[in-house]
């Protein structure tokens, strides 16, 4: 009994001491230097936010809500702030916007639902969002074994412009075709595959991975179909998981090839803080670093840039005369009621 009470008291003392210690701890230097850190400074609050209509709620996925190249950077650059930010799963921001749950949402520029749901991408007039062109990324050893992979996939990547990718995504998301069906039809139509497949080699198969959203699944299938048509055996590991999962699998050698976006690699995999808005510059840097540090080869990149986009409903945008993110920032900060 007494032992127990002493133990409790001891723990309490330790806890209080621990709390005091925790409070007393100086924040890391890095944090102090971070201009976006709301703990030290709240730059946005300095401007009178009193007029912001509480209806201005922003729907975003978790990643965009926190990354430097996401919402925190966006509000910093454009000088505005939403009344509230709701985080949700990546795929449902489009529906939330269409259904009127929120007036503004974040999405990906090439998503098929933008057109289908009568949404509009606001123009990033201050060029905040980094570029996210997409390349097949192959492990060096794999490419040594099958050097022809580059010849097979480079023309395909070159053919994937924004309209094409959007339309492929729409066929899956809205018309509910399977990614493999959409991939096959497009490859056929473009003449990348035909009725005369090469004999299947009996070498080591190439493991093709992808992240788990529509565009990635389709791109994964495109790679598989094209490789197999040219006689390279593959293993289908598409839909493996999030960015991190697929990337780590590739670094371990469990995945040989998947399509990655230049901007993602720059920030997430290579750890750069600053985004690059020129496609060629971004690609060159990423390709060089990734080969050097991880032995990963970036093949040619696509013309389409699946960057983040800020969307509104077309009708609302027309009514409020908003076409750019600056227009939106202006409307919000000047107290225009949310649609």
């Amino acid at each position, binding site marked *: 009994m007494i032992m127990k009470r002493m133990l409790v008291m001891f723990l309490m003392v330790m806890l209080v001491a*621990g709390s005091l210690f*925790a409070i007393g701890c100086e*924040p*890391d230097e890095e*944090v102090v230097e971070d201009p976006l850190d709301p703990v030290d400074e709240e730059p946005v609050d300095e401007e009178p936010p009193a007029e912001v209509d509480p209806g201005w709620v922003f729907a975003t996925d*978790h*990643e965009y809500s*926190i990354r430097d190249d996401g919402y925190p950077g966006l509000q910093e650059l454009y000088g505005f702030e939403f009344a509230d930010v709701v985080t949700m799963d990546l795929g449902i921001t489009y529906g*939330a916007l269409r259904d009127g749950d929120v007036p503004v949402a974040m999405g990906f520029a090439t998503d098929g639902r933008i057109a289908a749901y009568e949404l509009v991408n606001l123009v990033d007039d201050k060029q905040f969002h980094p570029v996210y062109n997409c390349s097949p990324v192959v492990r060096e050893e794999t490419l040594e074994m099958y050097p022809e992979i580059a010849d097979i996939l480079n023309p395909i990547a070159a053919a994937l412009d924004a309209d094409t990718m959007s339309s492929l995504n729409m066929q899956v998301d809205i018309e509910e075709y399977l990614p493999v069906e959409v991939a096959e039809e497009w490859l056929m139509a473009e003449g990348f595959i035909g009725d005369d497949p090469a004999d299947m080699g009996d070498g080591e198969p190439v493991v093709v991975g992808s992240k788990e959203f529509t565009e990635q699944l389709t791109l994964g299938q495109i790679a598989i179909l094209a490789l197999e048509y040219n006689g390279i055996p593959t293993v289908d590991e598409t839909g493996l998981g999030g960015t991190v999962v697929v990337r780590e699998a590739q670094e371990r050698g469990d995945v040989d090839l998947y399509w990655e976006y230049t901007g993602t690699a720059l920030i997430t995999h290579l750890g750069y803080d600053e985004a690059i808005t020129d496609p060629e510059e971004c690609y060159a840097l990423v390709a060089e670093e990734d080969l050097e540090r991880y032995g990963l080869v970036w093949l040619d990149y696509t013309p389409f840039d699946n960057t983040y986009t800020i969307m509104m409903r077309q009708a609302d945008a027309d009514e409020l005369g908003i076409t750019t993110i600056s227009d939106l920032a202006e409307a919000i900060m000047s107290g225009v009621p949310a649609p």
Partner: protein
Amino acid sequence: MLQNLYKLVLVPLFLVIVGVVIVIYTVNNPTDGLVARMLTYDNVIRALREHLMLMLVSMIGAITVGVLVGIMLSRPSLYYLGRGVENVVNVGQTIPSLAILALFFTWLGLGFRVAVFALFLYSILPILRNTFAGITSVDDSIIESAKGMGLNQFRILTRIELPLAFPIIIAGIRTAIVINVGAATLATFIGGGGFGDLIVTGLSVRRDMVIVTGAGLAALTAIILDYVIGQIEIRVVKWT
């Protein structure tokens, strides 16, 4: 008395302090700028408030409805319906919580209320099942001797059946809390907020400190609630 105080108040208080210390420590010692941005007092308090609201609103609803419906189904005239419902409930329980959430999202849209509603439906199941099982498992001879001594249906329910079913109902509520606290972290996928915001945001940028803080606080919440209910049970049920 002191023993009572120690168990009922000091232990939960201890756990709360553990949570507070975790928060104070992580907020003041972020590993980098991203973590600092996610782990602010505002964010943590908001997540806590949303999480508690998600859990409490859905649990209170689930307990009320689950117990009442469980009682109704245990009446002899509805017994077979009750058996049927019990089977449906057992099947319902095997549907993953994320699937339930996704289902309700497609029907009802997104946000806090939909998340609460999904959690509510999901938490009803164990409570309803245990209420029904608890009441119907009361020995017939006990009911008969109560009836034979002149207790009416209502008195038998309140004096005999419910007290005897109480430990089983509480077990159901505790199961529901465990399910609920886990499922509540998924509410963030449909914009419902809660500790899931911290966990999933942390996951998306691979910041372990944020993930662990969010998950740790969610777990602590569940442990505290479960502990308090367990203590209440021990205090009420003296007869086993």
